């Protein structure tokens, strides 16, 4: 009984600050003038379904590419020989983590513009027409640029938990660095990698600034841009909330996995 009372303040904070606003948003998304309705979800399906699919696959693809790059960076930092280059990369790769998304978006606009750095480089390589990057391509490049270092940081922390002896035993047994990565490091840290992926994917789905500054209202765009558009121009909170619920469903599969892993590992129990 006393235990339950002691938990109560924390529980109240969670209920009031998190569950109530979330529940209210869900409630509004199902509320019409005559009570319960599915009309907002119907609008989401009719007007924004293409954006829902777009948000899903650009976020997922970006997280996959960022995961691959993050794994490679972490593997180099864990398995590479200690030298000045490694030390330099170890400092350098973290910088994007600390840059706000709006700054990343502004950088990407300059970098990916029709006469931006990337197109000029491609032009110098022989490409005659500039590539249009202010669509899914730019979005994926921006997400990867921002998320790969973050994933590398989390994955490296997992790799560092693997004892040196486990790696050395594999090396003496004949494993190259690549085999050490695929046979020892990744299987022993697969939950850490999955958690890093889930966080990066969820963050991509929830990002507004990058798709807004790169794609804006052009079709297809991200759900977050649609939500802002719905609220700003129509004052339509119900449809905006319905879009929010859909974006929550997009990340919930991975969020459930993340929470289950955290509880299983005992992080929330300590």
């Amino acid at each position, binding site marked *: 009984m006393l235990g339950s009372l002691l938990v109560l303040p924390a529980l109240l904070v969670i209920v009031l600050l998190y569950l109530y606003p979330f529940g209210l948003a869900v409630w509004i998304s199902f509320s019409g003038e005559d009570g319960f309705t599915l009309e907002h979800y119907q609008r989401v399906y009719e007007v924004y379904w293409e954006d829902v699919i777009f948000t899903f696959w650009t976020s997922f693809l970006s997280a996959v590419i960022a995961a691959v790059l993050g794994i490679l960076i972490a593997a180099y930092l864990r398995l590479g020989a200690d030298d000045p280059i490694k030390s330099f990369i170890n400092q350098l790769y973290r910088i994007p983590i600390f840059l706000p998304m709006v700054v990343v978006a502004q950088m990407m606009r300059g970098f990916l513009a029709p006469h931006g750095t990337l197109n000029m480089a491609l032009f110098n390589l022989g490409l005659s027409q500039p590539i249009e990057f202010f669509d899914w391509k730019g979005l994926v490049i921006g997400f990867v640029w921002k998320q790969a270092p973050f994933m590398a940081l989390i994955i490296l922390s997992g790799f560092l938990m693997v004892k040196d002896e486990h790696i*050395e035993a594999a*090396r*003496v*047994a*004949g494993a190259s660095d690549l085999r050490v990565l695929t046979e020892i490091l990744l*299987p022993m840290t697969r939950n850490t990698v999955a958690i890093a992926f889930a966080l990066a994917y969820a963050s991509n789905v929830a990002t507004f600034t990058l798709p807004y500054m790169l794609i804006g209202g052009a079709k297809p765009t991200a759900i977050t841009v649609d939500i802002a558009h719905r609220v700003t121009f129509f004052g339509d909170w119900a449809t905006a909330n319905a879009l929010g619920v859909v974006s929550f469903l997009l990340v919930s599969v991975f969020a459930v996995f993340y929470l289950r892993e955290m509880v299983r590992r005992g992080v929330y129990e300590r």
Partner: protein
Amino acid sequence: MSLLELRRVTKRFGKVVAVSEVSLAVGKGEILSLLGPSGCGKSTTLRIIAGLTKPDSGSVIHEGRDITELPPEKRNFGMVFQNYALWPHMTVFDNVAFGLRMRGWARQDIARRVKEVLELVKLSGMESRYPTQLSGGQQQRVALARALAPSPSVLLMDEPLSNLDAKLREELRHELRSILRSLRITTIYVTHDQAEAMALSDKIAVMNAGRIVQTGTPAEIYREPADPFVATFIGESIAVPGSLLSVNGSLGLIRLPNGVQLKARISKASPPSKEALLVLRPEAVSLGEGENSLKCRVSRETYMGERVEYRLECEGVELKLRSLDPVLSVGEEARVVIDPSRAIIVGR
């Protein structure tokens, strides 16, 4: 010709010299132990041989080829680690099969070989278990099977029995000896346990402060210590400094600080010098009177089960005396004889 050689290998960690100018040679099929106290550089030497640590200078020669720069995965060595280092996400089968897969063996050959080595280490039927489902002794057997499976050219063992309890350690020591003998595999075995080194090795290299101070057969190391460190590190000994007065063949006459003069054998590995050390092991001391004897008083009696051990105060020198049965009591006076063929004089 030696199968494996270290030539003047040195390794520093910052200002600490972990391995200093170490040279050694191991013949094919030979079991060599690197024996020494903690921090003497024996594990670093082993890691240099494995390719896990790069030496600052010197070279590692395998079958006449310089492999100092060769990465560990290309050396075809096997290694057993102190903490087993079994991969927890793999079954016993997968752990043992790993080295074979890395070498591109066919699936059926892998299955046959894994079965063979698991039989050798008496773990048949455990293939599908995970390391966490095994006892410490079983895990060490898996580690041995994993190292042996690819038939390595050299087997490296880093204190493989030190995490086991005393009874299991002794049991595994005998099994290990018979396995290594039957396979005739060249082995370098790191240990701080002299009994283990004595029981397992053809040759022992005693290390101290990053250097090899003596290499020889277990009998040579025990009977003919090269310096005071080896004399006191090996066996249960009491060392008393003294002055060498005269040498007569293999025997020397040494004067102890209390003025007592005793005869003892001069170690063949240590050239006679005036500044000497008399090394007395329990087997050199027995109850009796006459020449080479000392007057003693019993200061402590310890019952050890299979024997009784006495601490004796002998004219300012403390000695140990062993007896199968209780023959003295604390405070009692007795004379002990020092056997000159078992007491050893080494140069200081």
